[in-house]
């Protein structure tokens, strides 16, 4: 493997720490940055520093925010009986874009996955139980991804919530809009059948 002078090498290795970035992409990014005007590069560096300094996790829902509690948690017009549990902060943005949900959120920051060293105590779950026990919550919607780990985490959460007498629901997963049943793989199709609803 070709090694570059130490500061280039360090930059490449820094990029490689990001998810989904291998050495090849890291190298491309590093050289791209080195070829930028100096100010542009400084702008990027500064925005990383700023974000890191100013962004904190919301003490209520766990979302990333620059105010605590975050904007959503401080919005009193929302439906306080609903909490939607998501896997990652980015998922909130996706839910918000639908314009169909007006309750509050809770971010787990991952799902339970013992093979990756993530146990039940390593995700943001205790505070969810506190929230449910201290507030008048009627329904918790589990919007975690439909992977094996997501399903198991959802089952685990619903078990923990059982004593509180709240409704626990799971969002339906299925065929993407605009796609054809014929070309939908069986896993997705099976999910769609599982999540079907009565229309008559």
């Amino acid at each position: 493997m070709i090694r570059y002078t130490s500061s280039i090498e360090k930059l490449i290795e820094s990029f490689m720490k990001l998810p989904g970035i291998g050495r090849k992409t890291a190298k491309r990014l590093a050289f791209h940055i080195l070829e930028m005007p100096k100010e542009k590069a400084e702008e990027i560096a500064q925005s990383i520093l700023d974000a890191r300094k100013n962004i904190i996790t919301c003490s209520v829902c766990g979302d990333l925010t620059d105010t605590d509690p975050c904007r959503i948690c401080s919005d009193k017009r929302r439906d306080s009986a609903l909490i939607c549990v998501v896997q990652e902060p980015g998922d909130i943005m996706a839910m918000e874009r639908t314009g169909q949900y007006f309750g509050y959120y809770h971010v787990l920051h991952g799902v339970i996955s013992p093979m990756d060293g993530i146990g039940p105590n390593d995700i943001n779950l205790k505070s969810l139980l506190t929230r449910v026990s201290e507030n008048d919550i009627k329904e918790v919607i589990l919007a975690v991804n439909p992977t094996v780990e997501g399903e198991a985490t959802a089952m685990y959460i619903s078990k923990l919530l059982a004593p509180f007498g709240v409704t626990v629901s799971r969002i339906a997963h299925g065929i993407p809009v605009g796609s054809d049943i014929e070309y939908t793989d069986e896993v997705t199709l099976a999910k769609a059948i599982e999540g079907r609803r009565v229309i008559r």
Partner: protein
Amino acid sequence: MIVKSLTLTNFRNYVQQTVEFDNGINIIHGKNGQGKTNILESIFMCSAAKSPRTSNFKEMVNMDTNDDFFVISMDYSFRDMDSNIKIKYDNRGKTFIYNDIVLDKVGELMTRFLSILFTPEDLYIIKGGPECRRRFLDMFICQVDKGYFYLLQKYNRLLKQKSSCLKADADSSEKETYIHVLNDYMADIGSKVIDKRLSVLREMKEKTYAIHKNISNGLEEIDLNYVFSGKKIDDHNVKETMNQKLDESLEKELLRKVCLVGPHRDDIEIRINEKDARTFGSQGQIRTAALSLKLCQADIMEKKCGEKPVVLLDDVLSELDIGRQRAIVEKFQKNQIIITCTDKEKILENNNGSIRYIFVQKGKIIV
């Protein structure tokens, strides 16, 4: 189902080689270690997405060249439609391509091409450990039912998670609750795996019995039974049974830190004339039993998919007398057959149909 031609690039001891096949009988011959089995292996991979010899794709890259990839490209016809399957492997991983469309899930390759492989290793289905019988059954069901492939994938993932959880350091109430959750989930998925195995096995039981009795000249009766956690079971309340067994074994599992209950531990009991074939079967009985099981699978495959699988016979005919050789070829007279052997004179003497001969030497087809 007919394989028309096969092109191997950097696969095993082939650098770049195209092989053409006839609709009927094809005999690949040559000395040992020349690359005959490699051809059958690559064809079989197009139906199972796995090699019968290894789970490591890297092993199949030609190590005598500098390239770090291989490509298998197979043209075939299925219900009179021409199709192509490509399997590519390089340092980024495996790619499965059907008619130039990259399949996003391996399972999508299943049921697009059907083949059945007979090899001398089939004896291990009978005399090997339980894992040999599970693999034999699982590989077969996957080939005819891609839903089963996904089910198995899900179950194996759960299994990995549960073993990691059992091995994770401290026992805590959270860990135990989580294991209960996994157990419920595994009982659900695991019982579906077992249900499918049971239903295929039920079908195999009768057919294998008839086939085995026939090739043993009426002397031997074979019986197959599914064994869950050391006990024969039928398809009654599998989920409940598994749930119960998981509950019972939890303490032991926590102590030993391994998953002790589920389809990954099960077995298929094979009896010949009421005796366990694995321990008491003679060499001849074991060979006949393995052959019967495979022949039976060919029947089921055809019934389930409405198309005759390509029959791959790797070095097995030479072990049989001319009478049995004929019987097999007769049974598959409407299938395409690809046979490998070292001595072509000893195979199908005086066969009156036409045979295509393919001579292999050091990873090359010699014409």
